[in-house]
């Protein structure tokens, strides 16, 4: 049943009257007051997540030199960028590494600095060395430049991430290898010595809107400390995975593509990340407000960690070989409590996703909305939901 509209909610935000709670707080509210009353009383539920998100990067347009250069290859702090665009446009990918990096030649590699770290440094206001080379044309005669840029001096810096905020993710184990394995899910000890997960569970944006009823193209979000928007469904977006009775996906499913002005973001919420033996990436803070338009929606936002299940996947043999096999299902309450049972063994858990930071993001977003500084947008198009 519909209870309110975007316009009504925004009107209340403008007046400073909106009732905004986090995705944790709504759980108790629904438990105490019931769905009907909660849907009437609450206007917005805020979510949050803070985790490594490899499909990310930034478009940068730097001020061209005099004479001008049609930059063909461009490095920022020694990190190669993609320059196959117009003269002074580049795309800096977060997993890019320096050309001279030892990679995994001395295994496991350290991967101390890469694209993600450049973005963090840029947002922190640091000076970044830019080197560009080209072949020279009549209109762009310069063949090489070395200069220094910073976030203020570039014309545009636009964080543009094709796949973020995965709706649920695998729990990773090492079942078959007799040594530590070094994966994007962290270090996995032999004999199922640990189990690593990566989701904010009950706080995670897409787990609070399992059928993408409110999160769609055009949704305004908290991105890297500033503001951003969902611009498309993310790459690998897949709504067709198995779901629980509550509609929540039981494996990695939906994703979103997001965009926002890097100039308004903060290094606190964009962290260069070094994953031993794997590579570099960027850890990103994302928070999405969910407008309580109906009783269904408030019910979805009240989802609890114990009702969100995911699959245990082996990263020593199955995952690398594309074998889709599960070694059991666990929920996020068990994962967050520190131990899960796999094949009769108590296995300690670790996470790549920071629940503490996810909670802070949901709180910050709540505060911004309450103060009237952040209004909600109605999506111009929905993400495909598989419904």
């Amino acid at each position, binding site marked *: 049943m519909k209870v309110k509209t975007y316009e009504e909610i925004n009107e209340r935000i403008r007046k400073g009257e909106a009732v905004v709670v986090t995705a944790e707080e709504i759980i108790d509210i629904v438990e105490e007051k019931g769905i009907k009353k909660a849907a009437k009383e609450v206007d917005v539920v805020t979510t949050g997540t*803070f*985790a*490594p998100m490899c499909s990310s990067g930034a478009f940068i347009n730097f001020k061209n030199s005099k004479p001008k250069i049609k930059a063909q290859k461009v490095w920022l702090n020694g990190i190669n960028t993609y320059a196959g665009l117009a003269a002074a446009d580049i795309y800096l990918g977060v997993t890019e590494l320096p050309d001279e990096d030892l990679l995994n030649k001395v295994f*496991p590699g*350290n991967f*101390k600095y890469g694209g993600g770290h450049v973005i963090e440094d840029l947002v922190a206001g640091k000076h970044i060395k830019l080197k560009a080379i080209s072949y020279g044309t009549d209109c762009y005669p310069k063949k090489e430049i070395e200069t220094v840029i910073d976030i203020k001096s570039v014309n545009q810096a636009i964080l543009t991430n094709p796949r973020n905020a995965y709706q649920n993710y695998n729990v990773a184990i090492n079942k078959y290898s007799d040594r530590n394995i*070094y994966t994007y899910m*962290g*270090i996995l*000890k032999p004999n199922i*010595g*640990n*189990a*690593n997960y990566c989701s904010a569970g009950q706080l995670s944006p897409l787990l609070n809107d399992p059928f993408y009823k409110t999160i769609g193209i055009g949704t305004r979000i908290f991105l890297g400390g500033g503001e951003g928007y969902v611009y498309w469904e993310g790459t690998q977006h897949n709504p067709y995975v198995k779901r629980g009775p509550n509609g929540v996906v039981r494996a990695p499913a939906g994703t979103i593509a997001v965009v926002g002005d890097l100039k308004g973001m903060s290094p606190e919420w964009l*962290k260069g*990340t*070094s*994953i*031993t*033996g794997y590579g570099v990436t960027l*850890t990103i803070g994302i928070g999405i407000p969910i407008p309580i338009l109906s009783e269904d929606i408030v019910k979805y936002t009240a989802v609890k960690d114990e009702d969100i299940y995911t699959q245990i996947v082996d990263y020593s043999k199955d995952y690398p070989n594309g074998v889709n096999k599960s070694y059991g299902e666990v929920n996020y309450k068990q994962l*967050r*409590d*520190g131990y899960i049972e796999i094949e009769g063994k108590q296995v*300690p*858990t*670790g*996470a*790549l*996703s*920071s*629940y*503490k*930071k996810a*909670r802070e993001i949901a709180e910050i977003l709540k505060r911004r909305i309450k103060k009237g500084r952040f209004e909600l947008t109605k999506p111009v198009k929905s993400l495909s939901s598989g419904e």
Partner: protein
Amino acid sequence: MIKKRVVLTFPHEIVSQPVVYHLVKDYNLMINILRARVTPQEQGRLVVEISGRKKELETGMNYLAELNIDIQPLAQDIKWHESKCVHCTACIPHCPTNAIFLNRDTMKVSFDKQKCIACELCIPACPYQAIEIVI
């Protein structure tokens, strides 16, 4: 009985000597080796927990000092940079002594120097270079 956790750094000319044997035999000390790394021709590093009578522990330490072995309290060895930590918990399953631990209500990671045995397992597990070994 008192107990001390120390990091001993051996100059390369001492690496071939049975120093731990002498600590046990001559000074009646109990040695629990927490970690050892010996690179011949370079230097040796030994992380130990030493327990014994106060007097004997003191004279044992003097014996080490006379051999030019550098003695550092263990707590100074591993540094956890709180400002770099994002509390993701990737390190938690790797710490054998719960020196790095998680408050499951606040989901905040903390570090208890007293429990740290400087095994260094947490260092590669941290994606934010928040844990550092200080030599």
